[in-house]
């Protein structure tokens, strides 16, 4: 599929947020359908573009078919990035999200992303077979979600959770 067009304008994410996202984190996404029912999915990789104006999230489209359909329909997307060892978390939201088949370059992200995630989680007591069991995804089922970040929130557990983060 061609480079997705038609992404709505958003503020993007700043350099500090980009640096945080530029590693293997726990990534989970939410959307909502037309009747405002929430949908949730675990992603297997994510990447912010170098300028921070675009966020790409990869997930198992077969296991999360309902969410993918909702994103395609409503364009609503929220993504939470969390570092398991520190619980530091950020949530990125945007409208006008698009669903696309991943490019070869995007699909290639999943391997290194999983390796980094394994390094992070084995450091806090999880085993590699367990992490692979959770993150395992057939490459043929990969789907890419693209969004222009409109707002970023601090989601680290604590009293500041939910506060907007300046881009």
């Amino acid at each position, binding site marked *: 599929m061609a480079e997705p067009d038609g992404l709505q304008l958003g503020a993007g994410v700043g350099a500090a947020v980009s640096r945080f996202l530029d590693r293997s984190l726990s990534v989970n996404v939410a959307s909502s359908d037309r009747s405002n029912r929430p949908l949730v*999915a675990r992603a297997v990789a994510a990447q912010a573009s170098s300028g921070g104006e675009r966020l790409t999230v990869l997930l198992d489209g077969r296991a999360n078919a309902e969410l993918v359909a909702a994103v395609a329909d409503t364009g609503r*997307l929220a993504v939470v990035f969390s570092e398991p060892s520190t*619980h530091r978390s950020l*949530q990125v939201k945007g409208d006008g999200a698009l669903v696309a088949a991943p490019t070869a370059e995007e699909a290639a992200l999943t391997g290194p992303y999983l390796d980094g995630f394994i390094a992070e989680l084995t450091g806090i007591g999880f085993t590699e077979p367990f992490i692979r*069991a959770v993150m395992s995804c057939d490459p043929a089922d990969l789907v890419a979600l693209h969004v222009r970040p409109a707002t970023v929130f601090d989601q680290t557990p604590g009293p500041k959770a939910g506060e907007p983060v300046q881009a």
Partner: protein
Amino acid sequence: MSDRQDHHPVLTLDAIRTCLEGVIPATIATVAPDGTPNVSQLSQVHYVDPGHIALSYQFFNKTRANILDCRDALLEVIDPSTGAQYRLRLDYLRTETDGPLFESMKAKLSGIASHVGMAEVFRLRGADLFRVTEIEAVPGGRPLPARIRPRSLLSAVRRACEGLRGCADLSDLLDRAIMALRDLFGVEHALILLPDAASGRLFTVAALGYEASGEAAGEASKRGSGIGWEVAPGDGVIGVAARERVPIRITHMTTDVAYSMAMRQGTAAGPLHEIPFPGLERPHSQLAVPILTHEAGDGRGGLGGVLFVESAQEMRFTYDDEDALATLAAQLGALMRSLPAAQTTEVEDPPAEPAPAPAPAPAGGPPITVRHYTTDDSVFLDHDYLIKGVAGAILWKLVREHTILGRTDFTNRELRLAPDIPLPDFAENLEARLILLQRRLDDRRGPLRIEKTGRGRFRLLVETPLRLEEMQ
């Protein structure tokens, strides 16, 4: 349709309860009235019953605002042993700010908060209760085979209950319960505590696995076996379990947890003669289950005691362990109520054989000083604190009658009627005090012992001369 159902039985909350142990954060999606989704990770999803879960409300955040506005939420959880993932659709019902559910979650949250180094930050404001309307297995991932469990808890409960049948008395019942915990549940550290009706404090009358847990042998002997350790009501997992009459379980715990600290510090500022509660030095899992005794028609029940287990291992006690020990505690409560000593009319065997010789002359050796403080009935043996309160008053009466009248054989009944023993009221369990006294003396391995000689009868064994000192 029916064929399909045979192969895919409907998923229940009970079937995936292990996902709610808090090992892996859950993810929750909610939606604002304008349709904007929100996604967040949660440290605690609390199993309430087969149809309900509760989430901790600590801060007013977007998730909470959305739930209050729209009620609808979707939760994703992971089985910590297989990696299998599930989605639970939730319908918000209400928020509870006190009571058993709230206290149980508060205790657990404290453990989690300490685990992630945020004990100061996390404070439970409420327990948000949800109905689980739908559970879906996420088809992705490649789950591992389920972990093999070392024991069947249902079988352990059954055998433990069978083993309690026909107990002779409270002491026998407590011992059998402790043995069941060790042999059938694989528990390494356990206590059974009984309440003092007057002070509300709980004191330990049966213990397992604390003798050798000190760092050095000298330290271990100072700590004692656990018999006599006290907990104030509301203090730590034991005190909260007693106050709220609900099991309190902590699966991740470090030494700086507020709960364990409260438990250990509570004694420092308290009255003079209490035996502190050292417990394990580094507990990572704790579970306290109230033992309730129900009169006919009384649904709430009276507090008969607390069953407490702990472990140096994280996640040692699961929801299933909690259910199993709660069932064992229910059996203990029923049996405690039915024991003869709990009745107001006391059963007493006729005096069987008399003591070999009335007041056998103490076998030489240096005399031991028994000092009694009237203010709190505390008793010291050669300057070492032994016991206080009702049990202290009992011991003081026994040693006086032994020294002055040469008596060795006594009955529970005479103690109950004695004006110098301050039993608060008829419901006060005299036998529990005698068990405490007997076991404290056994712990001391000194020249004073108490031996049961029949129902409602016992004997004071004295090996050295006694020197009595009464302090005002």
